[in-house]
């Protein structure tokens, strides 16, 4: 994003000819952007702006819209569904972010080697990320089957007499969903980490070896610090995607059992699209947006402080 400001905008016009040139470049520039911009403005930009307005309106499918002030937001405090969804989203993020981070970093380090055929392993580990979600949800739901599922049979084998009920129990449904999503996402973040690892200058490692540093010290003192920009990017992307989580959970558990895996995004869908409470659901989405924004800004702050 730093490339945004790397070029000064057009120089001030001096003569009629250069003014004509300027007008020409405006026309040409806009003619390139317009086909995409029309669609983008109408179907993304306007809805984004409208969401902010809607959040302050009484607007449902049946009555004429009226101004509501902050009523939609005060209503959130008493809404049990909102409390549950917010809590579940936070728990999901707290589980999903560190687990995915550790798994993807571990995979990246393991697969960042000079070995014949290593590319195949990288590609294969990445594959779950681009597989269709419904297929993944189906197969994991069966793997998690409390009685006959392979996962619980394996746990039995390990001597666990009472393995969890996973997606059919209120306490274990969220962990089950987290495990599935970590498995699905780790390949994607591994690719980002691999890019980061390959940008570390080889000389650092040679110098460390010269000083007699072991593998572990090399990892802590060279690899991790050099990876900091990548780790930061991964952390931001991961947390944002955790708070936005929707489709995987929705397909796997439908938010259940009960409200055990109801997350904010699903609540927005339920209240807005199913129940037609456009204003109120927009207030929830504004809260979701603010959470994402605060988390991102917070992480940027920490990153800046570290760099100083």
């Amino acid at each position: 994003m730093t490339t945004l400001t790397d070029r000064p905008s057009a120089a001030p016009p001096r003569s009629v000819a250069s003014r004509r040139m300027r007008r020409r470049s405006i026309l040409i520039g806009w003619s390139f952007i317009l086909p995409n911009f029309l669609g983008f403005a109408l179907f993304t930009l306007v809805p984004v702006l409208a969401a902010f307005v809607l959040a302050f309106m009484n607007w449902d499918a049946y009555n004429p819209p009226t101004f509501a002030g902050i009523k939609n937001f005060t209503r959130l405090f008493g809404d049990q569904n909102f409390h549950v969804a917010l809590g579940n989203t936070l728990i999901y993020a707290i589980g999903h972010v560190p687990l995915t981070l550790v798994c993807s970093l571990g995979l990246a380090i393991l697969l960042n080697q000079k070995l014949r055929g290593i590319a195949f392993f990288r590609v294969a580990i990445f594959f779950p990320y681009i597989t269709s979600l419904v297929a993944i949800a189906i197969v994991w739901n069966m793997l998690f089957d409390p009685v006959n599922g392979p996962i619980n049979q394996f746990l039995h084998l390990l001597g666990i007499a009472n393995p969890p009920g996973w997606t059919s129990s209120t306490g274990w449904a969220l962990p089950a969903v987290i495990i599935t999503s970590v498995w699905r996402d780790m390949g994607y973040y591994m690719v980002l980490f691999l890019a980061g690892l390959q940008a570390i200058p080889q000389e650092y490692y040679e110098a460390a070896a010269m000083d007699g540093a072991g593998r572990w010290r090399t990892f802590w003192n060279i690899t991790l610090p050099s990876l900091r920009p990548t780790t930061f990017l991964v952390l931001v992307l991961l947390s944002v995607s955790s708070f936005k989580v929707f489709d995987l959970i929705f397909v796997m558990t439908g938010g259940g059992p009960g409200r055990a895996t109801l997350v904010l995004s699903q609540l927005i869908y339920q209240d807005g699209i199913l129940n037609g409470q456009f204003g109120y659901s927009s207030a929830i989405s504004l809260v979701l947006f603010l959470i994402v924004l605060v988390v991102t800004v917070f992480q940027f702050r920490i990153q800046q402080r570290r760099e100083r």
Partner: protein
Amino acid sequence: MSTLTSDLAQELDGGRALPPVPARRGSRRIRSRLGRIAMYVLLVLLLTVVLLPFLWMLSSSFKHDDEVLTVPVQWLPTSFVWSNYAQIWTQIPMAGYLANSAFLAIVITILQVLTGSFAAYGFAKVRFPGRDALFLAYIATIAVPWQAYMIPQYMMMQKAGLTNTFTALILLQAFGAFGVFLMRQYYMTIPDELNEAARIDGLSDYGIWARIILPLSKPALASLALLTFVNTWNDYMGPFIYLSSNELWTVQIGLKSFIGQYSAQYALIMTGSVISIVPILVIFLAGQRYFISGIATSGMKG
């Protein structure tokens, strides 16, 4: 653009190649060969664990329904029930679902690549006032979660009478900011001198885009096309919200409703799942280089 898949990747523990006290060559080679074999064993084990759900899915798709969830786990079918792969087409309109998914994915991909790369040229190669502010608007919306504006989008489509049409999905997904962003980042790496030289040769900006920039940006175009295609193919929420009639359903929606209706037909559900993945697998294997470089350069996804 770094291709991560290249075997020239720098070795992480490269330091080990220069031990303080050089060992005898022969012993080192043996040790490293042993190490290499151990590493391969480890990697194969890891791969098996990670891909186990797929292997289990594939194996189950050839079983009878009552053989899928058994104690103990049957890793291989006792007899291969090939008829699952014939039955799925008649039990649910699988061919229609596949055709719908393919249609949506192809149309959206073409529109996204065309308008995205066209707009990216405007952002990267033409200077005009307001350009950077406009680009900032694009980037800002990438940061806003889709869930935050899906309600206004839905209301608009409802007003326009476009719910339950492909048009709604195409309009909502074909003009994403992500494509513009990805292509612009790539165009910024192409030197401006090329444009100036072409202009002196009498090419217009449109000519430069079509004859010089597009051919040069094939890798980025491939990344964008593949990512868009796969995202659209796998999209669940869009079709789920907008498409209510069965004949418009995509593979994802069709498969989900199939589980709801016939929850005990485990084997056939697995067969459907395998079929829904095959197109993605083929496309992925053909263009995996572009997927990975696209992700590594952009660091973000729609």
